[in-house]
């Protein structure tokens, strides 16, 4: 088997959950989801609609795709078949199938925080960069994934100080429907150690699989909340050599994931 990095594992695993014809958006400065979407597109999704910055691109036949320096880069224009119509497209973003969210805090119910840390009603101990588009996109996209390059008790907390993108709130059954949120919410949370899914009854994060070589205690010790652990724990399926070939030669020549 070809050796691979944890980030490559994460990208390959995510890519398999994306289907052909889906509409998925890729931002800048979020290399794992970017690689996942492009890998899905090049490996099995020739009809995917891929949002790259403010363009919709199709990359069939493109030898290799450099990564965005910034979200508003102009150069993807060369592969663009359309550009986002503002405000029309942002206001009709519920047609987005797949979105990705991160946070400076992630809690047991899949809520994420990009706003800031601190208990006060106003003011912050640590101010985050802001919600960007996540408050709405996590609501409206048909499903989303929480992706983080870190796994620590400070990141994975019982309850976010502030919620910028609501996952399952306080776990009340049917809360998303009650709040009128059309999207299904977070499907998986993937970290450098493991994959979490969400219990359909409690809506809490549940251990889905451990990455190869990761021990259960490593996850428990690095998570700030009590994890729902099933009887049998699977292993995250590693990248295939075919996946790695596309990933390394066409998507990540710069080696951001290595």
């Amino acid at each position, binding site marked *: 088997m070809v050796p691979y990095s944890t980030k490559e594992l994460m990208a390959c695993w995510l890519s398999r959950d994306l289907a052909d014809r889906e509409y998925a958006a890729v931002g*800048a*400065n979020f290399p794992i989801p970017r690689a996942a979407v492009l890998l899905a597109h090049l490996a099995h999704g020739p009809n995917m609609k891929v949002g790259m*910055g*403010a*363009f919709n691109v199709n990359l069939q036949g493109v030898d290799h795709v450099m990564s965005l*320096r*910034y*979200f*508003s*880069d*102009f*150069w993807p*224009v060369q592969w663009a078949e359309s*550009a*986002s119509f*503002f*405000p029309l497209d*942002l*206001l009709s*973003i519920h047609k987005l199938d797949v979105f990705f969210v991160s946070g400076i805090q992630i809690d047991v119910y899949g809520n994420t925080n990009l*706003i*800031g840390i601190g208990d006060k*009603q*106003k*003011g*912050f*101990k*640590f*101010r*985050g*960069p*802001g*919600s*960007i*588009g*996540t*408050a*709405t*996109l996590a*609501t*409206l996209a048909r499903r989303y994934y929480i992706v983080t390059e870190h796994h620590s008790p400070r990141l994975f907390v019982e309850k976010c100080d*502030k*919620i*910028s*993108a*609501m996952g399952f*709130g306080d776990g009340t059954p049917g*809360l*998303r429907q*009650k*709040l*009128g*949120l*059309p999207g299904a919410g977070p499907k998986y949370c993937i970290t450098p150690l493991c994959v979490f899914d969400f219990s359909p009854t409690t809506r809490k994060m549940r251990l889905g699989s451990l990455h190869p070589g990761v021990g259960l205690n490593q996850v428990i010790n690095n998570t700030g909340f009590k994890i729902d652990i099933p009887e049998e724990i699977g292993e995250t399926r590693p990248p295939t050599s075919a996946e790695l070939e596309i990933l390394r030669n066409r998507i990540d020549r710069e080696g951001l994931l290595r």
Partner: protein
Amino acid sequence: MDRQSVITDEATALAQIRDGMTVALGGFITAQHSMALIRGIAKRGIKGLRVVAGLSSALEVDLLIGCGCVQRLATAYVGAEATVPIGPFFKKAAEDQTIDLWECDEIILMAMLQATAAGIPFFPVRGGMGTDLPHLNKDLKEFRDPIHNDPLLAVPAMKIDVAVTHAYCADPYGNVQYAGNTFADGLIHRAAEKTITTVEKVVPTAYIRRDPFKTLYTADFIVRSPFGAHPYSCHGEYIEDDEHLKGYANAANLATKGDDSAWKVYRNQFIDTPEDHMDYLEQIGVKKLFSLNEF
């Protein structure tokens, strides 16, 4: 009686912006901010601005905060992605509560602009329900829709005095066209009472008429400002000046930690001393500028 040109100079354009006004800035994260005018605002020490940074800001609002111009800020993000993850002055002002934040995400900001542009008191959205945005921003109000009783968030309109945007080109009569993405600039123009646009090039009206479908809006004031978005990008012309952004962020970072020596140098060299935008470009230098040309 002849048709009148709306091309003006920086000073006249900046005289439109007065203390306490609500000013909406165009562009998106690291692209197409009207830095020529934003530096002019900072240089003139205009105070108490209520800034709307749509779609999302980079560090242009951070600079305005650092120069003491901002009383209230509506934005979904302040930073320059991997280069500068968060604006230093913004971070400190938010933590110290020295500016009011109109907390939102990008789509809620667009909903506000859309309500304002349409002349309706609010725009209803689903996004933001269940988050802390309505707790942090008292202007957002949960309500029940009058037809189906569905829960929704009402995003109120906001009176915007002046929009400040940067574009690729305009003719002498204010017809503005972009070479690349237009982001929320078309909406921002329609939400504002008055629009000032800096442009890379002034073109004849015949150029505009080649493709009138490309005209995004007709601005009230046009200011000729080549490299007017520097250190940010302008589609079809130049990319970001990362080195400059890092220098800014470093100076700002130190200043928020009590050492303002680098910030004083930055401010002096790039904001206070240059008479105008052309003087600023001299500070950056021709070699640097043309090294940024895209493609």
